Structure formats: structure tokens, C-alpha cells
């Protein structure tokens, strides 16, 4: 368990401000925030590379705030993996073993086999691919049997295909070794897929902590909402409120949303692109919002297609490539953008 109590620290142009957080044992905990939010600084403070200006850090109930890094009983894996360039892969893995007086060569081979790097043991880190370097860094970390693993943007230096297998590997490791993992990232998809719980950090402040559903479905404010990927943010005014159904005027349009707000309040309505249905006709259904518009842009993103629709306001929709092809969606095509009132998240 990692307990962080009122932690503050200034560092160059970053500052962490009075941050408190509790990470349970065995949790896969993701710290999510934009670049420059102070995520790495937080992780380095937990690892003991810096001392905080104020506040306390406890690991499994023991205060480590001002202890040197080697006494923190955790392993830190950097974004660039920080393998020692002058040592072979084997020597890199053995480094932590030497420091912690672990002699067993079987253990080294076991972990090397598990991470599929046994054939690389005599190579040097600079000659390895990103994915291989990451697996070596994980082997080097795990061979010392840590209970806590700190990962600084572990996937961002990998290409998309390697990212996928690395994600699975990390989750598998977490489960098999019963590790407490603290993973920082700026990628909300990564956070959503991997995390048991997520903490959102912005400008050195902790903004929201919760399970992924809470963070993504109920962001506490518009900054979080913007960041976690509600790509459609509509500014408007509540013109009627009836039994949890709001009518919101935004520009010349009126949309329905579920929520509890006073009539007349200025609000933001957030709508995720994947919750927008595109349709050629406006059919009768339980979908409350059906806006007529024209396709202005189409981008293919692998299996998905992002479509920009101008309905007086511009909406971003995310649909499958198959749908886009079957419906003949191209710039200029006239279309209905439909979404349920319940998928509109309204914040003041």
C-alpha cells in the first residue's frame, strides 16, 4: 500500500500542490494527466529520487519520505527504460540481483524465458528494439521480487503493435506476481483499458480519483471531461428541466440531455464521439436527439472512422469502417447525427 499525504514539491517549472492519494496493495493504479502535469515528478518523489518540500509518503505503513531510493522497496522503470548501455542484457538483469544479494541463476533464466528475452542475454541494450528493451527493463526490475512497480509512460515509446502486446504483458505480470503497479500515462485509452483505479492530475493538482467508469462517465469538471476524451463539448443554456430531462439551447439547436440542472443555468454538454449514431434517415426511435447535417471530413483510424458532421454545430462521430463504407459516408453527404439524452453528460 502506498499512502501519500499532503505532498508538495516545487521542481523547475513544475509544482505538486498538497497532493493526497492512497493506493491499495495489488491495485493496478493509473495516474492520468496531460504532459507537464507533474506526473513523473510525483512518481520520482514516491521512488525517493527527490525529497518533498512538505508532506509524507508511506509504503506499507512505513514512512519513507526522506529515506534514500534504495530503501523504498520498489522498482522504477523509466519511459526510455534506462538500461545500462555498458552492460550486456544479462549484466543489466544481474545488477539488481547483485545489489540485493540474490544469487540464483535459475531465477534469472526463468524470468528471461517468461519475458522471451533468453536469446538476448549476451546482447547490448543499444542494439535492441524498443519492445525488447522494455522487456529487459521489466526483467531487471522483476528479478528482485519487488512488491511495487512504478512505470513511467511504459507504452509511449513503443509502436502501436508492440504496445498491444506490452499492455497484455503488464496486466499479466500484475496478476501473476500480485504486484502493486503505479503506471503513469497521458493516454486516456491506455488508462481506461488497464486501470483498476485512475487518478487524474492536472497542473500539479489531483483533480479526480475513481474507477475508470467514474472518470470517463462522470468527470468532475470540464477540464477532466475535455482531457478524457469527450470530444464534443457544447456550450449552452438550460431552457427546460422536467423529471431529469433537460433541454439545452446551444447556438441555434436544442438538444435533450439527462441530468439535474436549474432552468437558465449555463452548462457544458459533453458527448463522446462513439455515442453518436449516423443514419441516412430520421427514423422514429427512443433516441431523443436527431440532428440533420452534412459530412465535412472523414478520417480513417484503423478499423474506425472519425466523421465530422456540420449540423449548425460541428460534431465528431466515431463509427466502424464497415458502416462508413456500407452507408457511403463521404464529405458532402447529407446525414442525421443521433444520440441519446442519457449519453450527454452535463456539467455546470
Amino acid at each position, binding site marked *: 500500500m502506498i499512502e501519500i499525504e499532503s505532498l508538495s514539491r516545487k521542481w523547475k517549472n513544475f509544482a505538486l500542490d498538497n497532493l493526497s492519494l492512497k493506493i491499495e496493495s495489488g491495485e493496478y493504479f493509473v495516474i492520468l494527466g496531460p504532459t507537464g502535469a507533474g506526473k513523473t515528478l510525483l512518481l520520482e518523489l514516491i521512488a525517493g529520487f527527490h525529497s518533498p518540500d512538505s508532506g509524507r509518503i508511506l509504503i506499507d505503513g512505513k514512512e519513507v519520505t526522506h529515506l534514500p531510493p*534504495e530503501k523504498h522497496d520498489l*522498482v522504477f522503470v523509466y519511459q526510455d527504460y534506462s538500461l*545500462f*548501455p555498458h552492460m550486456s542484457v544479462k549484466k543489466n538483469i544481474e545488477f539488481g540481483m547483485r545489489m540485493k544479494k540474490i544469487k540464483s541463476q535459475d531465477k534469472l533464466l526463468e524470468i528471461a524465458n517468461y519475458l522471451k528475452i533468453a536469446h538476448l542475454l549476451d546482447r547490448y541494450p543499444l542494439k535492441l528494439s524498443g519492445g525488447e528493451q522494455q522487456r529487459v527493463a521489466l526483467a531487471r526490475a522483476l528479478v*528482485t521480487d519487488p512488491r511495487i512497480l512504478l512505470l513511467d509512460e511504459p507504452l509511449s515509446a513503443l509502436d502501436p503493435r508492440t504496445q498491444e502486446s506490452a499492455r497484455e504483458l503488464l496486466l499479466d505480470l500484475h496478476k501473476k506476481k500480485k504486484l502493486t503497479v503505479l503506471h503513469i500515462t497521458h493516454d486516456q485509452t491506455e488508462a481506461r483499458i488497464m486501470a483498476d483505479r485512475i487518478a487524474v492530475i492536472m497542473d500539479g493538482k489531483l483533480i479526480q480519483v475513481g474507477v475508470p467508469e467514474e472518470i470517463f462517465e462522470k468527470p468532475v469538471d470540464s477540464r477532466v471531461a475535455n482531457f478524457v476524451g469527450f470530444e464534443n463539448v457544447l456550450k449552452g443554456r438550460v431552457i427546460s428541466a422536467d423529471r431529469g430531462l433537460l433541454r439545452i439551447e446551444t447556438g441555434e439547436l436544442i438538444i435533450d440531455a439527462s441530468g439535474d440542472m436549474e432552468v437558465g443555468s449555463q452548462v457544458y454538454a459533453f458527448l463522446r464521439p462513439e455515442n453518436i449514431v449516423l443514419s441516412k434517415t430520421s427514423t422514429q426511435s427512443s433516441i431523443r436527439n436527431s440532428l440533420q447535417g452534412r459530412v465535412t471530413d472523414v478520417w480513417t483510424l484503423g478499423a474506425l472512422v472519425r466523421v465530422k458532421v456540420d449540423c449548425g454545430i460541428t460534431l465528431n462521430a466515431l463509427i466502424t469502417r464497415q458502416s462508413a463504407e456500407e452507408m457511403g459516408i463521404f464529405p458532402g453527404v447529407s446525414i442525421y447525427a443521433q444520440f441519446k439524452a442519457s449519453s450527454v453528460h452535463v456539467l455546470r
Partner: protein
Amino acid sequence: MIFGQIFDDFQGLVDAAGNQAIISSIFLSLYAGFLATLIALVLGAPAGYILARFDFPGKRLVESIIDVPVVVPHTVAGIALLTVFGSRGLIGGPLENYIRFRDALPGIVVAMLFVSLPYLANSAREGFKSVDPRLENAARSLGAPLWKAFLFVTLPLSARHLLIGSIMTWARAISEFGAVVMIAYYPMIGPTLIYDRFLSYGLSASRPIAVLLILVTLSIFIVIRVLSAGWSIYDRD
């Protein structure tokens, strides 16, 4: 000058190489320079590490002070050293019964050290700066205390900088004349002997010693460079 000596007066060079006084003065130059370099490593490497890794008030001032010996005339350095290390000096006084600097090997080493230390400190600082602090952090988080992280990670990765710094330091120490001659005319190091022979007997007597000194030091440096050529593979810059 070297070729002139070899083709016009090869016998003079051979005679110089066989002369006990000349050989021991050249050896003294190399030996005292070597001692100065060792001390410079002990003092300069930690200073370089601190300057590379830590920010503290007055850091610029410290960096400037380290460079002072490079800019003062070496006779001035000699006078300053004589003031401090002479028998009534700040350091030389209390140590008088144990160690003598004036006209002795320790005096030569101190003079050489003073003028050559900046080369080592600056080179060490650049070397340590070129090692990513995250490598040290990674080592620490794997259980290494600071000194082990330094010994096994930082030091090997900056070894080439340290070696080049040491060669520069040694070279600078061997070439020093002004400061040494002020604090210790005797025992004579190579440059002092050359100066002495030049004043007493002229160019033809001093040139063979000069050429011999150059040939000996040059060959040592070439050997070191060749042996260390393979070290550059980990340099990031």
C-alpha cells in the same frame, strides 16, 4: 626541431639519452606529473561530480575559481604557492617538521597540481554531465546506494572523459615550468634542466634534452590513446 636534432646531431641525442642527470630529470617530470594527476583525480573527480549533479548557491563562483589557475601567469602562481607552502606559509608552516615543499618533490607536485587541476575538474564535470541521471536513479531504485550507483554506472560511462582529462592534466603538469621553478628549482625537472643548460651552455646543449623530453612524453600519450580507443562506444556525445 625534432628532425633537425635527429639528422644534424643524432650523437647529441644519444649522449643525452645516456646521461644520468638528464634521464633522471625527465623521469622526475613524468613521475611528479603522475603524482599530481593522481591527486587531481582524487580532488577533481568528486568536485566535477558535485558541479555536474547539484545546483547550489555560488556554483558559478566555484566554477570560476576552478578556472583561475588557467588565467594567472605561472610565475604569479609560483609566488602564491610559495607564500602558502613555504616554511612560514599557511600550510607549509604547520607541516614544516613533516613535509618540506621548498626545493623538494612535494613542492614540484603542488605546483604541477595547481596549474593542471582545472583540466581534470572540467573534464570530469563534462563526463558526469554526459551520463543521464536517470541511469543513476534506475540503479538506485534497483537497490544500489549512491556510491555503488556511481561506481558501477556513472564512473564506467564517464571513464573516457576522465581518462582524457587525466592525460590533459598529466600533459599540463609535465609542461609546467614557471610555477615549479619558483617553488623548487632543485631537484630539477626536465624543463628546469633545459632552462639551466640553455643559460649555461646555449642552444646546442639544451636542444637534445628538449627533443628527448618531447619524444618520451609523445610516445606515452600515443600508447594511452591507442589503448583507450575502444572506450568511446558508450559516449553519448
